């Protein structure tokens, strides 16, 4: 037996992991600036809806993608305003965002169930797709997957090597020092919500425009929460987030294959796998939380200046 049967599963893992990857990187950006956002699940779902609806109406998935990014930004900005301007509890505000956005998306999306919309199809990259092993796994994908390969480099360099990245991290490590240096913590954190939210929205849109070309209520199915857990697994670094996201993609792809192959294992048990894996991954990586560089001011709001 040849081992090539394995490649389609790995390719499927990359595809299934991509929406989680986008959302995780978005959440990393926000957490690096000190904002714990438990609204990812809701913002992602709203992004999926906005992308799908806009693509359906305009007939152009790129416009849909832009709409998803904008809506993701708006949703996370709402959380940002409630926590940085009104100084509310970040945990509860994030939960409120998830409850509100999930309700809103399912309410507005119910009439769209079963309708078609144009999306992104798989286009092998000329040249690279002919590579052995890597070609079929990495380069027989859609354009959003290709774009996501650039994310770790872009975000890491942006956070580490640019002035803005340094300031963003300062808002997450020490808001007081940040303020003493004459920077506005408020502005930096809201910008983090803007950029992070856009990525989270795109992660959602990946589900409705590329992974499937359909809208279903609650289609994120916990991926936003998995992203929140992956941020800890990734030690707040985008490169590690990629590994974690593909791991989850692998479990999801495996579970779908098994169901399609007509296994006798009850589907409710198979569906548990990603959630149990999240708990396991979180438990395994939490020991290193201290040394792994959680932003020092994560989840806290600075007192307003007099």
């Amino acid at each position, binding site marked *: 037996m040849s081992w090539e049967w394995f490649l389609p599963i790995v390719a499927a893992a990359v595809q299934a992991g991509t929406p989680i990857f986008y959302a995780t990187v978005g959440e990393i950006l926000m957490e690096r600036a000190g904002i714990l956002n438990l609204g990812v699940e809701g913002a992602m779902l709203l992004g999926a809806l906005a992308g799908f609806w806009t693509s359906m109406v305009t007939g152009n998935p790129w416009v849909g993608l832009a709409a998803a990014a904008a809506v993701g930004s708006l949703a996370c900005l709402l959380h940002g305003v*409630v926590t940085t301007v009104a100084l509310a509890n970040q945990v509860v505000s994030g939960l409120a965002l998830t*409850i509100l956005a999930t309700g809103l998306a399912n309410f507005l999306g119910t009439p769209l169930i079963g309708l078609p919309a144009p999306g992104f199809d798989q286009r092998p990259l000329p040249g690279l797709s002919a590579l052995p092993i890597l070609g079929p796994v990495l380069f027989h994908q859609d354009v959003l997957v290709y774009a996501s390969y650039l994310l770790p480099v872009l975000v890491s360099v942006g956070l580490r090597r640019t002035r803005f990245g340094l300031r963003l991290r300062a808002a997450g490590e020490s808001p007081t020092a940040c303020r003493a240096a004459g920077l506005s913590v408020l502005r930096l954190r809201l910008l983090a919500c803007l950029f992070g939210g856009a990525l989270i929205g795109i992660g959602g849109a990946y589900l409705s425009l590329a992974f499937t070309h359909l809208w279903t209520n609650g289609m994120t199915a916990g991926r936003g929460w998995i992203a929140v857990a992956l941020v800890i697994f990734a030690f707040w670094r985008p490169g590690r987030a990629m590994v974690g996201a593909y791991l989850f993609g692998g479990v999801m792809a495996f579970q779908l294959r098994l169901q399609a192959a007509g296994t006798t294992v009850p589907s409710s048990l198979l569906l548990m796998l990603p959630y149990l894996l*999240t708990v396991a991954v979180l438990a395994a990586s939490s020991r290193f939380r201290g040394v792994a560089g959680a932003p020092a001011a994560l989840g806290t709001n600075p007192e307003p200046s007099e």
Partner: protein
Amino acid sequence: MALVVRKRREPLPWWGSCLIFLAAVALALGGGGAMLALQGKPALAGLSVLIGSAVGSLWAVEDCVLKAIPLFLCAVGVGLSFRMAVWNIGAEGQFALGAVGATWVALSLDHLPAAVLLPFMGLAAAVAGGLWAGVAAFLRALLGANETIVTLMLNYVGILVLEFLVFGPWKDPASFGFPMTAEFVPAAILPALPGTRIHWGLVLCGVVGVAVTLAMRSSRLGFEITVCGQNPAAARYARMPYGALMAVVLVAGGALAGLAGFVEVSAALGRLQPSIMTGYGYTAIVVAWLSGLRPLGVAGVALVLAALRVGLESLQLDFQVPAAFGGMMEGTMLLVVLAGSFFSRYQILRRPA
């Protein structure tokens, strides 16, 4: 004119919080109406159905109380951990496990009389829910795993455990393939209070409310939980057992959510089926926070949000409004109250010249 923000020296008077809550309800209703209009449905008629069918008749009020009972139990449990700034958002899964535990007793000990069977069902539900939450407590204490994510993930798993059982081993052979257990024997059904449709779960709520209030107010445990929530550094300095207290609030919260599952499966459905999961555990988070974490407040807010659910059922029937409408309004209320809580902690003053 320059304005400055300053920390309040005295707490906001009680009417301030009421005003914020009313503003939240008004904004949620307004937003809900706008969303109805957006979908081409009559907004005013919709809102009047929503409110009218929730408070318009004795029957409706009884419905509100019935729905408020599981909400109250879950929210008191969630509120316990919130007081300690431990974020148990897994009431939904703990509720599911509670229903499973109660069902297990109801199906396997169905020869017992009600006076023995019902307490056993309640006990099994509380233990199952408590253990489910205990997983999160264990992982947090041992490995420092974030309890927010673990409890939430266990919601998905708990619901799937319930589905696995009713689709598989516990499926009633006489159910024509529908995923449900056999009907419980009459002894396993929580009876109604005389003269009403409201069951004994209401009395259970009263007992739980009084017990939790007393424990939080006048026991060492309650004091330590409050201190750990408000000033963890001071708690550590006083050598309070943070890990053990965290386990207590999580497991107790899980047990209460489990009891809610018992009440629902026994009194409302009389058998276990997936439709028992209607999101009480998530609404309980909203209830707990809106109520300021006080049991009396929990009762009031639980009634308001139960009324919203009762009204929503009519709205669904009359105007084909999706059930997600409720989540939208709950989320709006919570966000508005959160934003409004700024005014209860800070005041805006004119800068002295």
